[in-house]
């Protein structure tokens, strides 16, 4: 029986704007609700501090980078301090593609913001499935 490794999902910290909050909430929804048995979150600030379990995990397991904007901090950090992520999403670019405006508040997502986060989480869940299928 082949044991499938878990997928690490890394959200940007994104304090600058609501896109970061969206990334974060979407990542948590994948972990808590959609793919709780298949995923692990990587805490980005801890990862950046270096030489932690987060770093070791990311070196050995596939990861998905969830970035709020085109600066792609999560993707670049993962590539720099472990290895290239298996997949990545740029939330800002996705929202433009969907034709939706980012949520108004960076602190608390309103109802539409939570819906957006859930939609993103579903997309992430599919990425997790694809990675696990490919393995």
């Amino acid at each position, binding site marked *: 029986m082949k044991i499938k490794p878990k997928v690490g999902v890394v959200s940007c910290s994104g*304090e600058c704007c609501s896109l970061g909050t969206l990334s974060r909430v979407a990542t948590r929804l994948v972990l808590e609700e959609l793919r709780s048995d298949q995923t692990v*979150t990587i*805490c*980005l600030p801890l990862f950046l501090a270096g030489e932690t379990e987060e770093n070791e995990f990311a070196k050995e397991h596939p990861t998905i980078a969830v970035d709020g904007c085109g600066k792609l901090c999560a993707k670049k950090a993962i590539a720099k301090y472990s290895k290239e992520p298996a997949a990545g999403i740029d939330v800002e670019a996705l929202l433009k593609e969907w034709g939706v405006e980012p949520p108004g508040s960076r*602190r608390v997502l309103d109802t539409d913001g939570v819906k957006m986060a859930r939609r993103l989480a579903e997309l992430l869940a599919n990425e997790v499935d694809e990675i696990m299928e490919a393995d």
Partner: protein
Amino acid sequence: MSKPILVIPCSGIGKPFGSISRDATFLVCDELRPGKADTLCLSLLVMGDEEARSKVASSKCITVDGCPLACARNNVERSGGEVAAEFRVIDLLRENRGLKPRTVTFLDEDGEKLSKLLADKIATKVDELMEEAR
């Protein structure tokens, strides 16, 4: 007018403390001290973004960490920033023993209470640092 004080949370995603650090920071920057307190993305700073580095180099920084691992403080210091004050959510928990924040994704009632208490303390510190800068 003095430059805004930079309030930088750890935003750790694995524990309620990280969410509280983030929420309190937004409360300070957006509601309690708009224009006097600002924040920036910790990961942008660590990844060497020029604008973020320049901001940190020319501003007083307050770090807001969730837990004793102190990722915000450590990462700001490593990036050349000077930490004028630091807060840890876990210390506030010690002062408010009855509060038990449990959730990470969306703050529960105790998480919100703790966040507000922390935001008030940070706001007071912002005032002190702004006063010193005059």
